[in-house]
């Protein structure tokens, strides 16, 4: 089963991600960037859902770290935030979509997971 990382400091929101993705993939929730960075080289995800305002180093620090290594640079990232951000400015970080926390519905998460976790050569 494919692995998805969720970087989300709000415990309740983290639980909701798990609920939305149940049965589709394995989900690991991290409440801060440091713990995700320390695990990512050993256990690479196929997709990352990333909140920007995190404890300590923020989501941008995480993006810089991920994109700087060859083995993680191509992992698609979906930003889930309440900030106003544009995908155009973040293309170099492999950000494929930005979801606004106040607008997203559970199917947005599910559909993105299905889209990016599907085998491309099928």
């Amino acid at each position, binding site marked *: 089963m494919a692995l998805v990382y969720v970087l989300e*400091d*709000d*415990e*309740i*929101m983290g639980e*909701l991600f798990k*609920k*939305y993705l149940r049965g589709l993939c394995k989900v690991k929730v991290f*409440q*801060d960037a440091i713990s995700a960075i320390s695990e990512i080289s050993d256990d690479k995800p196929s997709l990352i859902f990333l909140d920007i*305002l*995190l*404890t*300590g180093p*923020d989501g941008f620090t995480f993006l810089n770290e991920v994109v700087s290594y060859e083995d993680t640079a191509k992992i698609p990232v979906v930003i889930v935030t*309440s900030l106003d951000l544009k995908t155009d400015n973040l293309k170099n970080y492999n950000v494929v979509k930005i979801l606004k*926390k*106040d607008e*997203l*519905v*559970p199917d947005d998460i599910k559909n993105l997971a299905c889209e990016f976790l599907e085998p491309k050569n099928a």
Partner: protein
Amino acid sequence: MQEVDNIFVAAHELKSPLSLLRQLALSMEIDDQISLKRTQSRMVEVSERALRQVNDLTKVSRLEDGLFELEPVSIRAVCNEVTNELRYLYRANHRDIFEKYTNHSKLVIANRELLYSVIYNFCSNAMHYSDAGTRARIFVRDRKGKVEIQVRDYGPALPTKIWKDLNHGWLREPTSVAMRPGSSGLGLYIASKFSRYMHGEVSAVRHRDGTSFTLILPVSTQTSLFGE
């Protein structure tokens, strides 16, 4: 301009619980009977947090009218009331809180409502920003004619910018950057305003494994009436 900035920060801070409530409501569609109960209690928890913030903001706007009387208040009673209210939430989140009192001065000069808000804010922060399995601590002790109330948490330390601002006296404004996860520092700003109104001092100490927030209040001389 400052006022506009503050409104922006307040609006942004309230957006988080509202977005979360919306998300919890949407998630009920896929809940079974057991998780429905859990979602419901999460919704109550989140809305109570938001309501408390709105109430505190309302109080901030009333501070200038001087509507909050200062009077002798039992510090222990207020701390007990706060911990009793929060204890079940702490336990539900796999954390705990305990109190330690070494103060001989039982009464401080404060406004009970504002004092409750300040201590609640510190303790609620301590719960949100403590790691699971840890115990936050309220420590009340005498400090040269004053009483010190300290709330210690075990989680991410306070960012240095906020720490510096706070230790220069008080927070003049909420910050536009995240103070700690999911927070713009609005709660701390409100606590700082309330403390100043009560002639108290707020400060913070950064630890390697968390933060201590301290409020120092003047002792009420009426303490002597209680044979102390």
